[in-house]
């Protein structure tokens, strides 16, 4: 025991311990720092194994010395509390400090110092670092896939237009705020669909797109004169009715003729790709899987046994199989189930498959929210004389959806992370394009740069989404 007491500081020798401990700790960190940044080995004279372990031993003894309870020095107490509570923690802290110090120089040099940025051919990439020239040269392909270079403004324009239309909610005055849900649920997806499927793919169908935009704008204008009681049903039906009216009954022949004469160049969906395809697919699946999932969540909670069993079967089936087999099914099996002359584009098949798959997960998340609501909410709504749909739309769903924001955000994140799987049906979004670029004989050997680039992009998207869902959750949090 006396030995341990000897090593324990007391008031008289506190500063001796403090200085000695700090010095040893400082020396150990300095040794690793010099070793990793300037490849100097201070302890090179020692035999190999000892030289390797020496910083750890020195640092450990140093931390042991400065572990003084209530020393009265603020910084020291903080240090002890956070990284130096006991021997085990001290060793772990030291190891983590050393790993960080050791890994900074190679990462820095690979990313920046030894990397090559300039030029536009493989010849400039002679250093040991990353070859960002490769990314620069292939940037268009990674962003737009095989989409023709001259037409890429269409993708940019569509995305900018959709972003602007999507941000309408921020500028709406209080008077229009109540229609926002309607706008986002019906009009916005409709316009987005037209933009992406007709504007980006172009060709004679371009005129479909113009009908759609005209229909949407007309219906919004007429919408102001409709009594608010009927507005919901109005917006549910009129945009589509106007679109079909314009397309098939008014000016049909004339516009087909025009469309043949002029319009945008047609780009088949097989040529779409890159990051823009990731966005397109995630966007549509996100829009479609939500209502489908909601319907099945309600179906699973329904009082009708047959509807309940069908919903359970649907949900459990999609949740039990991997997405890759679902995509396989959409690619090889689904065409067998359709009439021979009926062809569905493979991008559309993909979007349907992913939407149905994710809808099952959304359904389970929403069911969790529905179950978490106390029965009193249902009973209160019923006692006010509300029917099933009114009760759910105005009382139950708003509260349940609020509760499950984190779960839904997780499902959407999973959806975004699942989009690369569409390589199964031969569509190449950014990861698929990377694999294609990797096998290009002129650019062999840069797989690492490509994957790091894609990883950074996905990480930023996913991290931003999860942070946004967190702020949403905080915003809609209500105490019960």
């Amino acid at each position, binding site marked *: 025991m006396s030995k341990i007491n000897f090593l324990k500081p007391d008031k008289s020798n506190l500063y001796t311990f403090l200085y000695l401990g700090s010095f040893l700790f400082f020396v150990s960190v300095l040794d690793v720092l010099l070793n990793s940044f300037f490849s100097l080995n201070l302890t090179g004279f020692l035999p190999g194994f000892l030289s390797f372990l020496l910083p750890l031993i020195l640092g450990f003894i140093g931390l042991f010395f400065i572990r003084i309870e209530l020393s009265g020095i603020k910084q020291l107490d903080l240090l002890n509390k*956070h990284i130096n509570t006991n021997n085990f*923690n001290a060793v772990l802290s030291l190891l983590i400090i050393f790993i960080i110090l050791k890994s900074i120089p190679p990462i820095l040099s690979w990313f920046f110092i030894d990397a090559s940025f300039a030029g536009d051919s493989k010849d400039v990439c002679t250093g040991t670092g990353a070859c960002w020239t490769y990314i620069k040269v292939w940037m268009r392909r990674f962003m737009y896939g095989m989409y023709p270079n001259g037409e890429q403004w269409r993708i940019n324009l569509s995305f900018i237009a959709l972003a602007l239309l999507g941000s309408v909610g921020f500028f709406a005055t209080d008077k229009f705020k109540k229609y926002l849900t309607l706008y986002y649920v019906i009009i916005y997806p409709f316009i987005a669909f037209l933009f992406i499927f007709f504007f980006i793919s172009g060709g004679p169908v371009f005129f479909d797109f113009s009908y759609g935009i005209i229909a949407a704008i007309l219906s919004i204008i007429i919408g102001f004169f409709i009594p608010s009681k009927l507005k919901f049903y109005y917006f549910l039906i009129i945009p589509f009715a106007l679109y079909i009216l314009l397309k098939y009954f008014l000016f049909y022949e004339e516009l087909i003729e025009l469309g043949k004469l002029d319009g945008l160049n047609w780009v088949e969906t097989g040529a779409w790709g890159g990051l823009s395809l990731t966005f397109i697919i995630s966007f549509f699946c996100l829009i479609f899987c939500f209502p489908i999932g909601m319907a099945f969540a309600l179906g699973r909670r329904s009082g009708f046994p047959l509807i309940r069993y069908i919903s359970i079967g649907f949900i459990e089936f999609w949740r039990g*199989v991997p997405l*890759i087999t679902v995509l*396989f099914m959409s690619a090889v099996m689904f065409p067998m*189930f359709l009439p021979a002359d009926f062809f569905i584009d493979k991008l559309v098949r993909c979007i349907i498959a992913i939407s149905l798959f994710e809808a099952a997960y959304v359904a389970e998340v929403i069911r969790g929210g529905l179950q978490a609501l106390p029965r009193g909410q249902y009973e209160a709504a019923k006692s006010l004389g509300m029917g099933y749909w009114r009760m759910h739309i105005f009382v139950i769903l708003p509260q349940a959806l609020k509760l499950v924001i984190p779960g839904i955000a997780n499902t959407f994140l999973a959806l975004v992370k699942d989009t690369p799987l569409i390589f199964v049906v031969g569509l190449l979004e950014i990861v698929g394009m990377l694999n294609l670029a990797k096998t290009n004989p002129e650019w062999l050997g840069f797989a690492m740069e490509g994957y790091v680039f894609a990883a950074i992009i996905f990480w930023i998207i996913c991290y931003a989404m999860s942070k946004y869902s967190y702020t949403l959750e905080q915003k809609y949090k209500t105490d019960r």
Partner: protein
Amino acid sequence: MNFKLKDIGPQLMTVIAVVLVFGFFTYNAQVNMENRGIDFGFGFLSQESSFDVQFSLIEYDGSHSYFRAYLVGLLNTILVSVIGIILATILGVIVGIARLSPNYLINKFAAFYVEFFRNIPLLLQIFFWYFAALRALPLPQDAEAMFGISYLTIKGLFVPAFIWQNSNIFFYSIVAAIIAIIVIRTRAKKKQETQGTQTPVLLISIGLILILPLLSFLIGGVRLSFEIPVLKQLATTSFIYEGGVSLPPELIALALSLSLYTATFIAECVRAGIQGVGKGQKEAAASIGLTPNQVLKLVVMPQALRIIIPPTTNQYLNLTKNSSLAAAIAYPDLVLVFAGTALMQTGKAIEIVSITMFTYLSLSISISLFMNWYNNKIAIQEK
């Protein structure tokens, strides 16, 4: 019975819609198959497959049947899932506990790990490990031995193989030890409930599981030797290791990325579970004089496990399903062997895709049934 149109109407409509959709699909499928001259049936399963698989746990070559190819793929899927589940659980529990550490550095390091690996698509991680990281490994002839017996090369990991003599006796001894431990555990529990005395179950268990197999070596005539992989020259520049067990790089990349990815989710489950146990529980346990170890073992863990197990089961299911991404890097799993090669050769799209989906469904359902059983077993028995 009191039938009301209000109740029957919606149900009838849904059922009719479902039946119509299915009927439409089946009708089209029949017409299409007639047009293309394909017949529906599972007879092809017994035909000769005539393709080879790189890596299989059971004996297999082109002369075996399609059913055998299916088994090869299924076993490979199960192999990578089991390896992934074990590694992910170990890593996930460590990281989950590290997330709760009072040590600032450990805490942030674990948080960084979770945020980093969780937000990158799994497929990208698999590609990264397979095409970028593992390609940087040395060639077989340049590889240095790890611990003198195993080699990590660009062609995979080569480890020594065990060669057993009388291995069945060794196996019986382990089974006997496990049975004995279960008996002792139940007895100790009963004894504690009736008489209130504790038996050192853990020590006895460790002793049994060590001593019985040891006895089988000493008395039972079990012999164990190792077959160490040896470098062999195939051509002037082509080398390979022979003997021992070789794990292909596809398996390593897949198991590594699956476990690194899933561990982040398991870590979050573990953290949520331990945080979910009320502070009062720990304080109450400490106040009746339990040591910190006892608090963790007898009070915190049993309650935390109840919160941890259901979401962790989900993660195990996800891992099993995600193992189908193997097809992207040509690891011969169920999807690649059966829904890929076999489908291309036979053209039996409907049969093969349904068998594959059905297999995954049964795997998922069996894992979730087992975990439900376990969860029920440890759930609070309310009286």
